[in-house]
């Protein structure tokens, strides 16, 4: 089992400051401060797969960006293995919703770019071997020399996952990785992620909209309240044995109970979001 991380999110709040100087007031463009997250406390144990689910606009992605180090919390701190996170780093692999692949690099080059950036002294042949290994892992054998625009969305995200894993991060952060894919491809890739996770069992934080996705993949599901000032509503344990299979998952007695609890919560929060928008 590879090295993996304990993540501790302590009293994290995020406030996006509004524009309130006299210039913007004069131009009627002033805006109030926006509280995205309020007092988030969360412990993520090593080797667990945690999903964060919540209504849209609840600051899920903001939280992930803070863990990734791309955004700083206004108050509070995120610690990884007891070390404060202040900036992005290769100890955290990030899978982006829009893939974030460089269009001018081939599949192999995209992955090798990540490996070389993190470990510039590694011999070229070794870099290529590692890249090839992860291309095989995500099932992209034969597509090494293709450019992203020649691939389908699902294949692109496999490259995104391979790239994030190839730098051997201690934790994998996934920001709605399948949000841009059609339902069939999404299901297929979820199965792939389940398969890959069984091999590596890294700590994973997954941001998602999908209840089924969260139930299939997670050990713990963090349900968030609606924004602004989103908080953690409840944390659910997902007790299903692994490896899990989409077809047989709903045979587990707790499945429907968990699913309906999540549906209830998300529907309630989403309704409130919609109503707040009308007012």
């Amino acid at each position, binding site marked *: 089992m590879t090295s993996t991380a304990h993540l501790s999110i302590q009293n994290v709040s995020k406030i996006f400051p509004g524009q309130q100087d006299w210039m913007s007031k004069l131009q009627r463009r002033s805006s109030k401060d926006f509280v995205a997250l309020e007092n988030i406390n969360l412990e993520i144990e090593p080797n667990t797969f945690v999903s964060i689910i919540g209504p849209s606009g609840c600051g899920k992605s903001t939280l992930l960006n803070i863990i990734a180090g791309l955004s700083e919390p206004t108050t509070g701190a995120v610690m990884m293995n007891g070390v404060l996170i202040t900036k*992005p*780093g290769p100890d*955290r692999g*990030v899978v982006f919703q829009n893939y974030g692949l*460089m*269009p*001018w690099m081939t599949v192999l080059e995209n992955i090798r770019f990540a490996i070389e950036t*993190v470990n510039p002294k590694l011999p070229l042949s070794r870099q290529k071997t590692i890249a090839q290994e992860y291309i095989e892992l995500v099932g992209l054998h034969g597509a090494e020399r293709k450019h992203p*625009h020649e691939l389908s969305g699902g294949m692109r995200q496999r490259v995104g996952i391979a790239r994030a894993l190839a730098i051997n991060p201690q934790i994998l952060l996934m920001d709605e990785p399948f949000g841009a894919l059609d339902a069939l491809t999404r299901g297929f890739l979820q199965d792939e992620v389940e398969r890959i996770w069984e091999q590596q069992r890294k700590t994973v934080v997954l941001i998602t909209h999908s209840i089924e996705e969260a139930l299939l993949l997670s050990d713990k599901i963090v349900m968030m309240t609606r924004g602004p000032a989103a908080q953690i509503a409840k944390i659910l344990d997902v007790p299903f044995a692994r490896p899990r299979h989409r077809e047989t998952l709903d045979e587990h007695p707790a499945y429907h109970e968990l699913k309906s609890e999540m549906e209830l919560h998300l529907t309630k929060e989403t309704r409130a979001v919609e109503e707040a928008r009308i007012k």
Partner: protein
Amino acid sequence: MQNSVIQGTQPATKRISLTTNQKAFLLFLLILAVVLGLWEIGVRLGLFSQLMPTASATIVNFWSWISDPFFNYGPNDKGIGWHLLVSLRRVMIGFAIGSVIAIPLGILIGLSEVTSKAVDPFIQILKPVSPLAWLPLGLGLLKSSENTALFVIAITSIWPTLINTRFGVSNVDPSYLDVAKTLGASRWRTLFKVILPAAAPYIVSGLRISIGIAWLVIVAAEILVGGTGLGYFVWNEWNNLQISSIITAIIVIGLVGLILDRLFGLLQSWVAFGRRV
């Protein structure tokens, strides 16, 4: 269920079907024939100035220039190929100088919002100035007609490349930059491996506009500066009242401009990798 076959209504008569391109080509030939025909008839009926040659005479003259482009009977009697080469050389040197200034400067100001805003007034004021307005300044500063031509071309080539480079560099897809950040890439590595390749299609499209304008301007500059080049050729033939040679030069200038544009178009698709600019 016999009705499951969807039947189209196919016309029984078979007509000769042409592709869009074939139709367009036929129409092109028709338009060309009409223009040449009206020209020929108009000149023969004396509808135009007496200087105007007939279409047939112009075609003969065009062919005589094109079939023997590299004769040399002294400074005032050279083949059009020589003039073309001189003009191309000037454009290439001036364009290279302009691009060598514009691309690094564009990168520099594209990376820094402060610099970008500070330099913007200079760009905005200098960009709309006709390149020919720089010509007397060049003559005064450089005291050489050859260098003045290069100077004017260089100045002309700067603006589109500079503006496009700045735009490309400052508008890199933020997700590429996030990827670089999460990998912990250094500033230099981010610049060379991410920002520049991301901006490349914009830079090349700037170069493409620049070379187009440079090719427009070289003719005017050579008319004023004189000596050699296609611009000089046009002016010299006007002094000889050889309208058919001027028309020949116009067509040559147009064709070369088209080829230059297409070459940069190829370069553009070569750096695009499926992106559209």
